[in-house]
């Protein structure tokens, strides 16, 4: 069996930094709590095991101790909550989508991702729009915004490397944005059970350099125009 790392896999979008940081913060905090409780548990089991002639210490509680272990978790979770709220707002808040984001339309259906590109003019519903199945091409270091729709059942656009996950719900248009930071290809998987081909609902996102992206876009529009 291969050794599997306990670290998060490398991220490739601007969200990865914040989300990963928050993840490690919670990991450290919960890790401390975990060690305190489990070590305490084992220590007590050994130290206070029944021995002849010893009687247990008769007590119903201790208010000070209880106040301490109520307050510490309460303060901790509130802090985690506030930090999370800030990051969440940057990712999903109403105003979070950058104005210059390149628009895409992704229409999910059993069991395909249909990606519609606005073409070189950057506008939808113009003749240079074109649709590619299971292929999302984005330029690096540019915010992109995907308008997600679904044909029949709920799907979920999951791009682990980008720390992106958003359900596509029939009857709703949901906007999800991200900004890729590293050129390369990454996998998209459906994260919401959508039927027998759920596991096969795989697509690929390719992050190009800007020049490469422009070239690709031009090429695709030519093909689209010829059809």
């Amino acid at each position, binding site marked *: 069996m291969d050794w599997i790392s306990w670290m998060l896999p490398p991220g490739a979008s601007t969200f990865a930094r914040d989300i990963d940081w928050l993840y490690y913060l919670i990991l450290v905090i919960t890790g401390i709590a975990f060690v305190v409780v489990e070590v305490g548990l084992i220590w007590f089991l050994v130290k206070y095991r029944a021995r002849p002639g010893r009687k247990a210490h008769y007590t119903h509680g201790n208010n000070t101790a209880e106040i301490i272990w109520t307050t510490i978790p309460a303060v901790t979770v509130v802090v985690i909550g506030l930090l999370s709220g800030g990051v969440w707002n940057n990712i999903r808040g109403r105003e979070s989508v950058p104005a210059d984001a390149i628009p895409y339309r992704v229409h999910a259906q059993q069991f395909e991702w249909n990606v519609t590109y606005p073409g070189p003019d950057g506008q939808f519903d113009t003749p240079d729009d074109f649709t590619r199945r299971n292929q999302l091409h984005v330029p690096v270091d540019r915010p992109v915004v995907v308008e997600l729709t679904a044909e029949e059942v709920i799907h979920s656009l999951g791009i682990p490397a980008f720390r992106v996950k958003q359900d596509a719900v029939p009857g709703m248009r949901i906007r999800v944005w991200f900004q890729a930071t590293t050129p390369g290809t990454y996998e998209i998987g459906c994260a919401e059970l959508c*039927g027998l081909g759920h596991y096969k609902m795989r697509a690929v996102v390719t992050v190009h350099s800007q020049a490469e992206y422009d070239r690709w876009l031009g090429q695709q529009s030519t093909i689209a125009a010829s059809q």
Partner: protein
Amino acid sequence: MRYPILCGALLLAACGGDRGATPAADTTAAAAAPAPAGSATITGTVRFSGTAPANPAIDMSEEAACQAKHTGVITDPQVVVTNGMVSNGFVYVKSGLPAGVTYPTPTTPVVIDQNGCLYTPRVFGVMAGQPIEIRNSDPVLHNIKAVPTANRGFNISQPSQGMTTTRTFTTAEVMVPFECNVHGWMNAWVGVMTHPFYATSGADGGFSIQGLPAGTYELEAWHEKLGTRTISVTVAEGGSATAEFSFGPTT
């Protein structure tokens, strides 16, 4: 109040689950008369005049195993016209057969293969109750979703190479569409008949229907993109007749 009814209905559905157990022979058992031995033949062609529409290209890059089975640009064979001859036209006797006659249902299955992420054959006929053997020759998942209107549909999957599954339809229907949701371009059509007088036009556009009793028949040719054409043909006992269907680009 509605629970017992619903419950009963469900149990019935549960018990009556023996799919395909009611072949055509059963339903008309009372009126069953032996099928008259006919010997007439109708042959003909399905033609197309003008410039055939271009077939869309298929991007199979994500299924390397399928792509490897093809060369060059892969297109979806929606309209295949060779020298003015249309293949994959489904020709069948629509009406004119004697009433109350049943025809024996073949027990040999019709095979439909999924090969290179395309259906072969793309268009074919079966008799009601005749088994359809669905085969997967690709090492990838296919699902087969049949969306009939008169028959009971199904949605099954074949995740591995070499799998076969057998299904039947019980009621005549032109046509039952098959689709694969994993590969949205994959389509096939099945004509379900209660008689054996049907054929699919070949690469040369030709078809042949044999063993007909003498009579006047309404023949229909069906094509997935081009639509339908109907012709009336009279044939004498032991004789033969021809039928020419012609589609045009304006259809």
